[in-house]
């Protein structure tokens, strides 16, 4: 609890592209309303919308063409491969359309605990256990024989509990769906204990629309005939085109609004009333209003015999109420996806198509393009002269080191900006001691000896940190080959909830005296990072090929949210 890991989240520019009208309260999110030219835009990491645009740098991708970061929310995705997470078998696009998004081989999850199920032979009960010791019999030498069941090795559930056994150990999905359609038709639910026959035989499902699938099919065909009967000439009866834009629907709406005069003038346009499905043949499924069987089921099975909400939710078909209604769950397929930039459509990330290959063909991660930010206290906790707890003491200034590390082969000029106080109810004062600096290039032609010397020098410097070195405004604290550390000073606010002095209040301002909200005691600094560097033109693809010699100036700016620490409650 006491420990807090400082964090740096980057705001994706997609926050601006969202229409402002979607924001629940416009006042607190000025970014959504202000014009793009407005330089005074402010950023509140605490506003509800910020949750959706702040990401750690590891989560972000970078578009080389747009020169900006992209988050997982704004990239467009394309499915490369569909596969089963259990058997890692690749599933074709077409079969997903016909068979659905579940594995159709023998991969199932336990309906009780979602553990993986395995196919096991249900050996016929052997003779009484051997009384003599160590005479382990070798009955298995003949090879396991059917019937087969699905077993969970974690919670010990097995499919014979719902009366499901298989003839073959292969093709369980097909066998199960056959059994299931037979079960739904003929198995008298909730009273199964009485009739003894809990081993459903394979019966064909074509006769009655029992299963959800069959019911849907009959409903669909029923309504399609209704559509075509109603509007035989419009040419849209047979197709699925009956949206609001279709001419038939439009004329019907017009006649509704224009009132009786028009419709009496044109009596033909009066719509015939569509009939609803009213027989089971047409797909009607009458609700079971007679609960006596359910109640007797409850009485005999007890609480343990009922299905939990969570178990019902992961079932493929709805309507399960008892543990005996829970069927093995075929694994939902997973996907591998290509990610594209939302504006220029360039590929940002592309996995290998093969399921077993976990590598990427292409992956432009933001960490390779923009500096990373790490935060740590200038004087570590527990060090002499340093703080004794991880919590920040109100009104006592603390200094933090922000270290920027440059991943690219060019020198980057960094300009930082923060508001003087953090937004929110508890405004902490923030001072950046060195808002402007340069980070050296991450070139690969450095002298190894120098780097090593640099590293040797480091511990000495660290030691002098606590004793001597003074924090100077406008000066970097420390720097190396491709990194720079700067100091930020924070004066944490007190998190006592008390009314503001009247003198400081704006006109009409009302005190917010609600209790401390979740994470409101964290000092979170919005910081605006502006980067400027010169890219050699040949790095820029395509257009600027002619002037190869010239260097092109690049810039990139974004907001970050730096989580510094928690304020102690007293």
């Amino acid at each position, binding site marked *: 609890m006491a420990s807090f890991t400082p964090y740096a989240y980057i705001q994706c520019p997609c926050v601006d592209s969202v229409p402002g009208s979607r924001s629940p309260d416009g006042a607190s999110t000025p970014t959504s309303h202000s014009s793009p030219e407005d330089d005074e835009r402010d950023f509140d990491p605490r506003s509800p919308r910020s949750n959706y645009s702040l990401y750690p740098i590891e989560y972000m991708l970078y578009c080389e063409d747009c020169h900006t970061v992209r988050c997982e929310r704004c990239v467009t995705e394309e499915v490369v491969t569909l596969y089963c997470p259990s058997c890692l078998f690749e599933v074709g696009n077409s079969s997903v359309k016909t068979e659905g998004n579940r594995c159709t081989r023998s991969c199932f999850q336990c309906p*009780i*605990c979602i553990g993986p199920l395995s196919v096991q032979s249900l*050996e016929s*009960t*052997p003779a009484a*256990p*051997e009384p003599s*010791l*160590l005479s*382990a*019999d070798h009955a298995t030498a003949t090879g396991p024989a059917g019937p087969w069941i699905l*077993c969970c090795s*974690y*919670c*010990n*559930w*097995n499919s*014979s*509990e719902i009366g499901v056994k298989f003839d073959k150990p292969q093709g369980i999905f097909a066998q199960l769906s056959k059994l299931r359609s037979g079960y739904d038709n003929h198995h008298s639910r909730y009273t199964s204990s009485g009739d003894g026959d809990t081993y459903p035989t394979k019966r064909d499902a074509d006769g009655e629309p029992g299963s959800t699938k069959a019911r849907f099919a009959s409903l669909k065909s029923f309504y399609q005939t209704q559509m075509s009967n109603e509007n035989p000439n419009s040419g849209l009866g047979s197709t699925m085109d009956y949206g609001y834009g279709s001419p038939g629907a439009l004329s019907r709406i017009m006649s509704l609004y224009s009132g009786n005069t028009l419709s009496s003038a044109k009596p033909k346009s009066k719509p015939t009333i569509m009939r609803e499905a009213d027989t089971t043949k047409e797909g009607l499924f009458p609700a079971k209003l007679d609960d006596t069987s359910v109640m007797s089921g409850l009485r005999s099975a007890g609480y*343990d015999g009922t299905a939990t909400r969570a178990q019902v939710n992961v079932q493929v078909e709805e309507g399960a109420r008892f543990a005996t209604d829970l069927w093995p769950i075929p694994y939902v397929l997973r996907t591998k996806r290509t990610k594209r930039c939302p504006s220029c459509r360039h590929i940002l990330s592309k996995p290998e198509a093969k399921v077993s290959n976990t590598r990427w063909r292409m992956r432009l991660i933001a960490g390779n393009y923009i500096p990373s930010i790490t935060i740590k206290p200038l004087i570590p906790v527990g060090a002499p002269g340093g703080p004794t707890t991880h919590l920040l003491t109100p009104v006592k200034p603390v200094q933090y080191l922000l270290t920027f590390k440059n991943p690219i082969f060019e020198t980057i000029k960094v300009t930082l900006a923060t508001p003087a106080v953090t937004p929110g109810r508890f405004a902490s004062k923030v001072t950046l001691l060195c808002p402007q600096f340069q980070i050296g290039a991450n070139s690969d032609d450095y002298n190894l000896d120098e780097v090593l010397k640099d590293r040797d020098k480091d511990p000495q410097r660290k030691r002098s940190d606590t004793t001597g070195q003074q924090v100077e405004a406008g000066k970097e604290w420390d720097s190396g080959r491709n990194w720079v550390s700067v100091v930020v000073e924070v004066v944490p606010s007190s998190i006592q909830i008390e009314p503001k002095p009247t003198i400081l209040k704006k006109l009409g301002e009302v005190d917010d005296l609600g209790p401390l909200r979740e994470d409101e005691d964290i000092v979170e600094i919005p910081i605006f990072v502006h980067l400027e560097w010169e890219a050699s033109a040949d790095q820029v693809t395509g257009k600027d090929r002619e002037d190869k010699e010239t260097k092109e100036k690049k810039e990139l700016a974004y907001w970050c949210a730096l989580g510094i620490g928690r304020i102690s409650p007293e």
Partner: protein
Amino acid sequence: MSSSNKRQSVLPKVPSGPKAPVNFGSHVTIADSAILTGSHTINISSESVIHPRARLESTYGRITIGRRCIVHERTHVGAPSSDDKRGDFGVLTEDYVVVEVGSIIESGNTTIGEGCHIGPRVTIGKGAKLGKHCTITAKSIIQPGEVVPDYTVVYSNGLRRTDKRGLEILKAKAQARQIEILRRLISSNPAKFKD
């Protein structure tokens, strides 16, 4: 710790306490580095297997291990409980019980029924009574004094259900086969524990 331990443990030495009076059945397999301490009797019935570094403690009451039981490494059978009241006996496990790695069974009239499977790092509280053929999955906790009915499966942070597989006979057979193999793998030294 026994002197035959080649590798020096980095943990501080556990005070092993007095050597417990023991009573072994026939064909008991007990590793040299198992720890049997306490003042009360430790009974281990025939064909049971005690793995290396298993700890059976009879300080707080008699320990009885049934026939064809397997007690795995770093288990602690007969561990002290939070309250000091002692029972008539410490721990009683019936036949065909498996106590997996790192489990703790507290002492004080604690009974483990026949064919129970105690998963890894389970804690069985003092005075708990497990029925026959229960399965306690990894890291579950059975509260002191709790009575667990026959064929109960305790899983997923304490959820319970009834095992309806009816595989007790098969399981017992498999356990007999496993013990047969373990006898060959574990160098047994029952004489060390008898005086």
